[in-house]
């Protein structure tokens, strides 16, 4: 998948909210990318934009999303519906909001399979649903087919969501905060499950999360977002061991760890800017401890500063060809 210069804005009464601005990313089969950032940075909007799930007053205002040699943004509704849930699937944070409470688990997963794999035979459908439920670790699957979402725990519901997402062997899976509402031991189970399934299906995964620690173990690449922009991108090792952007460094320094006690955690003064009234120059400059004069005047370009390491920051120079 190749995302180029994607921008999505919300046109509200108070002004235009630039939720995602000029984002470019590549992702290949079998790779995992973590999109990290705090509330309002645009990561969820990014995920939804890829699936074309943006509704008014939101609108994708610019860019291309090339998938299988076609631009998703130029596809008609019919084609998009074929892809959505088929080649590209999405898991959301709160399973209850994406599972219909009045339909059984079996019928909801069945619906997805019926739509995308065009299976009409009831028996065959049921077999497939049981198989996928067992694959995501739900024991006693045959009996549980006729149960309703409220009869499942949070962790189980998330497994059902994953089952639905994987039921059609997607090439690309977007997981938006898949474990945020779960207990940490259940989170470990779910991430373990997604990791195993990734190996089996060779799907590319985009993991959207505010939990940066999760990304360290799970992802190959990391994109850090702030106020709608990607301010740093590289492989996981670089981001954690060799972070360049002052925001990335501050965030990493603010994380409490279970393997050590720090005297004081790094803090970032001020608050995230309004996406309607972004500051002049670099969006992070008012809060940046390393800013120089040019930072409040000119928006830094997003460039490659080391092999496979991109950032938008005046402190760094683009590598020469």
């Amino acid at each position: 998948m190749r995302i180029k210069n994607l921008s999505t804005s919300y046109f509200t009464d108070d002004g235009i909210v630039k939720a995602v601005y000029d984002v470019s990313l590549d992702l290949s089969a079998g790779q995992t990318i973590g999109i990290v950032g705090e509330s309002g940075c645009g990561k969820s909007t990014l995920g939804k934009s890829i699936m074309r799930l943006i509704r008014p007053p939101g609108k994708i205002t610019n860019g291309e999303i090339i998938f299988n040699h076609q631009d998703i943004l130029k596809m008609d509704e019919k084609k998009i519906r074929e892809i959505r849930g088929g080649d590209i699937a999405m898991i959301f944070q709160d399973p209850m909001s994406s599972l219909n409470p009045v339909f059984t688990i079996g019928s909801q997963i069945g619906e997805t399979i019926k739509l995308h794999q065009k299976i009409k035979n009831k028996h065959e459908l049921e077999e497939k649903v049981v198989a996928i439920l067992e694959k995501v670790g739900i024991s006693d699957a045959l009996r549980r087919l006729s149960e309703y979402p409220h009869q499942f725990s949070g962790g189980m519901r998330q497994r059902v969501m994953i089952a639905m997402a994987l039921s059609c062997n997607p090439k690309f899976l977007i997981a938006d905060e898949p474990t945020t509402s779960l207990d940490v031991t259940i989170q470990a189970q779910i991430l373990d499950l997604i990791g195993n399934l990734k190996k089996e299906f060779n799907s590319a995964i985009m993991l959207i999360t505010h939990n940066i620690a999760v990304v360290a173990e799970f992802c190959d690449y990391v994109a850090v977002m702030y106020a709608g922009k990607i301010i740093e991108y590289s492989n996981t090792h670089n981001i954690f061991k060799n972070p360049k952007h002052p925001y990335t460094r501050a965030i990493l320094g603010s994380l409490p760890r279970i393997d050590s006690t720090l005297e004081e955690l790094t803090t970032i003064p001020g608050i995230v800017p309004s996406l309607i009234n972004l500051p002049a120059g670099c969006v992070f400059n008012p809060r940046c401890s390393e800013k120089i004069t040019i930072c409040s005047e000119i928006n830094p370009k997003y460039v490659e500063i080391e092999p496979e390491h991109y950032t938008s920051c005046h402190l760094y120079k683009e590598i020469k060809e």
Partner: protein
Amino acid sequence: MNRTVARVSAIDDVSFKIYEGESLGLVGESGCGKTTLGRCILHLIEPTDGEIIYNNKSLKSLNKKEMKDFRRQSSIIFQDPFLSLHPRMTVGEIIGEPHVIHGTARGKEKEKKITEWLQKVGLNPYHIYRYPHQFSGGQKQRIGIARAMILNPKFVIADEPVAALDVSVRASIINLMKTFQKQYNITILFISHDIAVVRQICNRIIVMYLGKIFETAKVPELFDEPLHPYTKALLSSVPIPDPDVKKERIILEGDVPTPINPPTGCRFHPRCFERMPICSEVEPKKIEINENHSVFCHLYK
């Protein structure tokens, strides 16, 4: 028509001490009972059985005046900054409310204390005229802290005070609480599901599971030498923000059982990777490994 359908035991036969000046962490996942425990300690909920003894007196035995004294000396910081601040009260009124309730300061003197605490939590004096909705999550939490601190309490319970905040904001609130604890020598009970945060603030930790205490230890020791299999699993599931650290992850099977029908014997036995036959029959008693470390598990003697 009232009919008891089931008895949900949120906390079951829990005993522990909180020492003056210490920062005690209470960790556990959903349904472990830590929030209920916090509220019982402050007598916000009445325990069904058992006692809370404060300064050698049982809370049940306190008369009205003594109870008021207790309330003045203790306070709570809540998790949700949105829900814990009254939307129709100004920040000044919110922070000053404890003084109004206890009649401990009035007029100019009260205003002075409010402004003092606003500044101590890093906000501006002119904020006293503003309403909660005009502040960010982190700022609201600072207001909650100022309110909890204004009567100079001896004992503060913080119930998931940073869970609803962004990462960078959490750090500033954690730093703030650590500073206050040292400065004012407050005893803190820090309730959290986030064990990494607890490591930063606390010197002692209690691990709870399904209404029971499983392990208690001083901070570095719990992390360096966890004893209870659940503690080991809990620690191993916390992600570390370092790709070079290769973890032996213990993946627990199944979900946390319902507190309505807890498992027999040790409540963790159905999911325990080190279980023995006795575990499903007999509830483990407390074993003191050393003066600072105790565990409830049949693996130890």
